[in-house]
């Protein structure tokens, strides 16, 4: 009932909002008289007067760069944090999830294509300031706010502002990103982030070039290293797509890189693909393939590996990498058992990477 009343409230806000939200963007520079260059993501779009960047969100007006994604989120929801997926962050707690329309990728298998492949002025949005969002999080007893669904980079200004406010209010802040962001804005953002999940779509330049419409793998790898360096909790998701990125050799390369550059304690989620968007005629990933990927990751030496989007497999649960006993028994989004105490295995006292309680560790 309480959610129902919230939607009545929000829908009222939608009808009130009849003008686009415009805020001056950060991370840009002038390029000649009528051009600006956006410096937020590696695409570094050079944008003519009146036109928009690749993300459809940043627009050149009068020789200045503005963002259309500010105070007008397209999706707001309370989700279990495991859904994001974050398995090493505040298990069993609700996360207030928020997204704006737009994205700096064009993935043909995007689950949220209906909002990521649209501009904010093409969708029906809510009106929610950062303060409103914090109030909502407190109202629904969500210890964390997660920027997710679409690509949070494109609503950078709102995300940063909200993150700062949230930290002051004692909330945790996280994001699920494709990682396609430049170093400078990323470092600034990470000062206020507690946890990040990066979609490492494939360990292949060709994949990013073709599927990501001219994107590159290396900036994403740099993002991963930067997050690790900054000491922010990091988890990685790899959506395993049949025929595109499911070859064992590619998966192995990825796992080896993760171990060598990020360490063996970064949780890695292999997520099952279901027919989606422009790949809605491609079959779902077989469980065999996911288990093979899991096995490869374990053999490489990664400690925390999971299979996602498959209900009831034991690979949803967390096991102590030292003594092998079950730490968190997960079934879907339900936590049946939590044997982590003060960030350590309660049996062998091995420190477990993650944010396990509201005091941070």
């Amino acid at each position: 009932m309480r959610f129902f009343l919230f939607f009545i409230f929000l829908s009222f806000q939608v009808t009130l909002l009849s003008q686009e939200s415009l805020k001056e963007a950060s991370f840009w520079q002038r390029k000649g008289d009528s051009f600006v260059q956006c410096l937020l993501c590696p695409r570094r779009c050079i944008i003519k007067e009146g036109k928009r960047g690749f993300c459809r969100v940043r627009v050149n007006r009068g020789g200045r760069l503005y963002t259309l994604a500010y105070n007008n989120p397209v999706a707001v929801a309370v989700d279990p944090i495991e859904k994001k997926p974050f398995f090493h962050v505040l298990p069993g707690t609700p996360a207030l999830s928020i997204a704006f329309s737009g994205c700096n990728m064009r993935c043909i298998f995007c689950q949220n294509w209906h909002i990521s492949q649209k501009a904010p002025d093409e969708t029906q949005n809510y009106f929610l300031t950062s303060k409103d969002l914090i109030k909502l999080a407190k109202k629904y007893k969500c210890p964390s706010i997660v920027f997710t669904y679409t690509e949070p980079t494109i609503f950078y200004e709102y995300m940063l502002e909200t993150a700062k406010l949230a930290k002051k209010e004692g909330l945790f802040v996280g994001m699920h990103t494709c990682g396609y962001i430049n170093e400078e804005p990323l470092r600034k953002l990470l000062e206020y982030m507690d946890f990040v999940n990066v979609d490492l779509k494939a360990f292949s330049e060709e994949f990013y070039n073709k599927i990501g419409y001219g994107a590159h793998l290396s900036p994403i790898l740099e993002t991963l290293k930067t997050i690790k360096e900054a000491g922010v909790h990091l988890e990685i998701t790899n959506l395993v797509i049949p025929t595109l990125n499911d070859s064992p050799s590619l998966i192995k390369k990825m796992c080896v890189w993760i171990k060598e550059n990020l360490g063996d304690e970064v949780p890695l989620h292999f997520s099952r693909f279901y027919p989606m968007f422009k790949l809605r005629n491609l079959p779902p990933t077989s469980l065999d393939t996911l288990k093979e990927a899991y096995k490869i990751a374990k053999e490489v030496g990664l400690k925390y590996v999971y299979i996602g989007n498959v209900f009831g497999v034991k690979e949803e649960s967390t096991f102590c990498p030292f003594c092998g006993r079950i730490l968190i028994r997960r079934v879907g989004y339900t936590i049946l058992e939590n044997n982590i105490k003060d960030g350590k295995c309660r049996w062998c006292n091995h420190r477990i990477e993650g944010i396990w309680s509201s005091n941070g560790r």
Partner: protein
Amino acid sequence: MIFFIVVLVGFFSVFSQSIFIRELLIVFYGNELISGILLSSWLFFGGIGSVSFSKISYKVKKDLYLFTFLVIIFSLLSIFEFFFIKSLRVIFHIRPGQIPSPFFVVCISIFILSPFAFINGSLFSLAVKICSEREREKAVARVYAWDAWGDMLGGAAFSFLFVYFFGPLKNILLVNLILLSFYYFFLSFLRERKSFLLFILLFILFLIPSAEKIDIFLTQKTWRGLKIVEKSSSPYADLVLAKKGDVYTLFANGILDFSFPLKRDDEGLVSLVLLQTKNPQNILIIGAGIKGIISQILKYKVNKIYYLELDPTLIKMVKKYLPLSDREALNSEKVKIIHKEARDFINTYKGEKFDVVFLNTSLPLTLYLNRFYTVEFFQKIKTLLKEEGVFTLSIPSKENYLSPELKDLDACIFHTLKKVFPKIVLIPGEELRFLVSVRGSLTGSPQELALRFSSQEVPFKYINQYYFFTKFLPWHMEYIRSVLEKHKARINYDFEPTAYLYGIKYLNSYFKSGLNKLFLWMSHLKISFLFVFISFFFLFVFILRKEFIVPLSTVGMGAAGISCVILSILGFQIIYGYVYYKIGLINAFFMLGIALGSNFSSSLRSKFSLFLPLSLFVFSLLFFSFPYLFKFLSLKTSVLSFLIFFLSLGGGILVGVFFPLANCFYLRKKRQEKELAKKAGFLYACDLIGGAGGGIVLSVVFLPLYGIIKSCNLIGIFLIEEAIFLYLLLKR
């Protein structure tokens, strides 16, 4: 003898066209919009070929050599185009499973079909020219009639015979063999050179034994990364079974139908549904039961499972690859597999009512599939269901945001269901699952379901009580319900297929195309505006360029002809269900009507000024009578279903009468042969272009936007206006 060749060419062209359009739809995962565009472009370019050739053919002295040359090009092109179509996804680097943009599909398809269609139209004009040497004014009517006979035979041969026995490549090669063999004898009869034909015939004979293997090879290339396990053709669909890892996937006409074994998903779905009702005994599954839900249902102590699967080839193909438990489940004495279409089954079922009905059909992306999402269909389901019984279906959705297109589609189905079933539970997700009942104790509470789950003595293997907490997330449930309750979408009826319109709009929203904007603009068009616009257009033409009234009426007649077939097929499907060969019969009756009408028209030539407008007028009455006939038939037994065939036959006769008489008007003062063929070619083009436009406008615009009744009335009114202006012109 030339008339026999005209029949043969007509046979070949419709036969090949059926294969090309089917293959293009398979390769591009097309829908009704695409198929309408393909058929229309075929007719359009046929018209262009006809009119172009009618002008240039007189510069060529040796008609027969040109005709022979075109027939050979026609034949070789068909083989080449088949291979080209099968290789398209590889040539254009379209990934397996990827849907290309509608714009790309339309452009490439037109590019492929246009040369073939162009030659087809050209051959008509050339045939008229050849025949006019002897037959004079009668040549047009005779060629038109014989072409219609050929079209009818070609369509019938493919639909009722060849498709059952051979794959597409073999069919193309066989029809080429037939065409060229008969042509060889034709040339022998005329004592013309023909030895070159032998080489082509030998080439075809060489390919025939390996045709199936080549077909599978080409299909495998298209599905690179997946292993093609088996391929089969049935009258209903081209079926491909592929494998990747431990998952098999069935593709019907290139579109993913279902994957198996996905035991977790099946066990989960069955639990979600069967736990909504106490002690379910009789279950009805409509479509896709073979993928694994039957074995899950049998874990509950059910009494009987009826599984409706229209295509027996599908069962035969998939069964071999099922896990043992699923194969055994199909053979269980509790399971009855019925090869009948759902509406056909429901109309005749007289057994016990069901506790649970699963509807597993595809999205309402065609007029045919729309019939499973209408008020009338849901009412029929309700009559089969016990009061506490549960009916379930799912459609695409999203749990965090509904775009305008999704909102329309989801709300349409929601409100349509609500009209029939008072109780509805929604399970949000990538698919929105509806659980509906009249009086059943439906619940959306995961706690309640977990309790029911725990009390079952069912050997669950993959899911447990926590499964329901992943499905029924409170935030998303309330979001979906609040959006759908508030959103005013049109209800979906048999005769007002709005879900079909919303389905097409939703699919188009994947791409940034102008099609959705076009639909949106057209959906605001009032019928009265259209009526006024067309009326003024006719008046304008009548006042300023009277000589165009006849071609314009020919366009209108072409459009009305194809509309008659589409409406007859749709009406039949709505009332009686989809019976493949009967649908083919409707087409065949129409072509037969054209042939008969053309033959009959020669006796009316002296009174063409009366019968031309009269045929339009009578046709308009036919359209006005369509809705009443459908309503009448829906209340009566299926014994009267033959009336729809006669409707189609009647339409064909009127079209067949009109075209030769229209030529009579043009040729009343022209006696030269070249004028004969030129005008015949031009009018034939008008006929085809009318057919092209009419098909697409009816299927894609009128029917989804205005429904069947208003569309019939609109077409009837247009025909009356044409009749009036034509009468006024001819009276002078």
